[in-house]
């Protein structure tokens, strides 16, 4: 049944997934076990996306199914377990109210065990700095769709520098107008136009930061 759930999740079969979640619960699986199976399903979805077999529409459906799964399981999971994971701060840059790319990236990150603090849209440089400072997140993700707002991303980076926190946080900018030139201009550490790549970058950063034996 575990394999069936994994396959249903990976195949984006909503009804089968939700039915199997309930069945596994009745058969004595713990909510965390089931979340883990579904998370692995999401990983397969992410893999298919990276390989070009799935497109954004499929990620959105996957998010919706996972949300349905969590509606069933979340009330059964202890709060302290829910709040574990490496914190990442994310938000859409000031002046820009687009949130689709950001939300999908957050979904992928959360389903891979990160604790994402979502600051929403139209977030000022000061809000980004305050939030990272408050929770000690090692990674900040800034989403931007309007090329007009690229200058404000630079302001965020400059403000981190100004308050002496720049070396505490890796900054990733993601979205439509970003490229190598935008990375250089703004002074961020990474750029990506692809949510699956955003996940890979976060993992890379954490691996680099872990002490090596």
């Amino acid at each position, binding site marked *: 049944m575990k394999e069936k759930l994994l396959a249903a999740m990976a195949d984006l079969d909503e009804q089968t997934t939700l039915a199997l979640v309930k069945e596994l619960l009745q058969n004595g699986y713990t909510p965390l076990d089931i979340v883990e199976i579904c998370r692995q399903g999401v990983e397969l979805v992410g893999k298919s996306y990276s390989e070009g*077999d799935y*497109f954004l*529409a499929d990620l959105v*459906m996957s998010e919706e199914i996972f949300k349905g799964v969590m509606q069933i399981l979340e009330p059964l999971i202890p709060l302290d377990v829910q709040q574990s994971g490496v914190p990442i701060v994310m938000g859409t840059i000031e*002046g*820009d109210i687009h949130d689709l790319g950001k939300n999908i990236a957050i979904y992928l990150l959360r389903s891979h065990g990160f604790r994402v603090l979502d600051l929403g849209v139209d977030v000022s440089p000061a809000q980004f700095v305050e939030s990272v400072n408050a929770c000690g997140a090692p990674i900040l993700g800034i989403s931007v769709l309007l090329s*007009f707002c*690229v200058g404000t991303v630079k302001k965020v980076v400059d403000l981190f520098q100004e308050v002496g926190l720049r070396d505490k946080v890796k900054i990733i900018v993601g979205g439509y107008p970003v490229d190598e*030139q935008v990375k250089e*201009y703004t002074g961020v550490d990474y750029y990506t136009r692809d949510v699956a790549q955003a996940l890979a970058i976060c993992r890379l950063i954490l691996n680099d930061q872990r002490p090596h034996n």
Partner: protein
Amino acid sequence: MANEMEKLYAERLGRYQATIALESTDRMPVASGSNYFAEIYSGNTNQETIYDPEKWLQAEKTFIRDFPEVDVLRDNRVWAPLYDAVALKTYRLPGRELLPTNQVQFVEAEYMLANEYDLLIANPEQFILERFIPRVLGAAAHNGSPAANMAFLKGGMAHVMMSQIMRNRSQTLEQACGMPQPMTGAFLAPFDALSDAMRGLKGVLLDIYRQPDNVLAACDVLVDEMVSFALSTADPLRRYPIFVPTHKPTFLSPKQFDKFYWPSFKKTLQIIIDAGYKVRAYLEGDWGAHWHHLLELPKGTILCDIDVQGDIFKAKEAIGHHQCLAGGMPDSLLILGNAQEVRERVKLLCNTVGQGGGFIINGGCNIPYNTKPENYRAMLDAIVEFGVYDLSIKPVPRPAPPQLLNPQDLKKVVTPWESKLAELGGVLGDESLIRRPWELLENLGHTWIWQWIM
């Protein structure tokens, strides 16, 4: 002066039209569709562009004076008082809830519920009037209320005023500056019509999994509505292409695109082409997996703007022999690069994708607001230097494309004349004298109620 402007207008229009038709001309036209840079170049704010038509016109005149190599300049953005009159919820506007220097932004929400497909499919006009408009126009939230009545009244008047403003500007640009339009009139692909302002992206993406047949049926009924909207807002002289921004293909797999997006879009495009028009399509995002479909439409009928996420070189290879392309200049280069880099890029484009014509250098479907003026100047200088084809050709406007269908027959109304005639029980005088203005006003009303999905 008048003659000189007429000559200039004819030359620019001829150059643009020949390029769209993949025919020979003297040089590559400078022909962006959305030239945001032009709107604020002379110091206007974005609020002034959408609220003060006179200031916008002045800004365009200044821009044309400083960049006379430009061949087309867009006149038809919204006149914001129309949106204020009805409290439209789908846009945030500079100077209203955004800073005056910020840009217009679309706010997506579910203004059609997942369980309302049957209503939309059975009677689209009734659905728009009874369900969609009360939700999307804040002032019309309560049908029949004084506020709603005023919203319809003021909104109708504002719409006519806006049309007048746009027409005046178009004529002034033509007569005083010799400047044609890159496009006139607009529509959406049926799938975008359904997903932009009605179901929202997320809603429609879930619908293609949960109720695919309803999505297909809805797209089908939206074909005629979009055709009517396009032809009702188009240039009656058929000089300019009709504009269609495409929004969702970049999110769809080829399989999803082929099933849900393309069939109704193709049908819409084909009817518009048969009615004697060309189309300027913004292929937003990466259309790499989908653009081969544009080979299915007649050659030289669709001007395709390739976004920065698409690969202009691959686009040229795949469809450039069949449809005109625009793009190739990264937005970031215009905003952050220098004049030398821009010049090198133009040279590269002219020597590769620009060879043989049918190509327009543009940013990703637009020239960004924060383009450096010296970069724009460098782009134009380089196009004039490297984009020359055959200076012995003197471009002149082409005859309007052939018409297999009469646009008048494709324009829709809410209440057909036959129903009105039956209600009247016949008329005693010349029926056509009553019928024509009746249908004209009905069609204006039809266009009015559908504009809110744009």
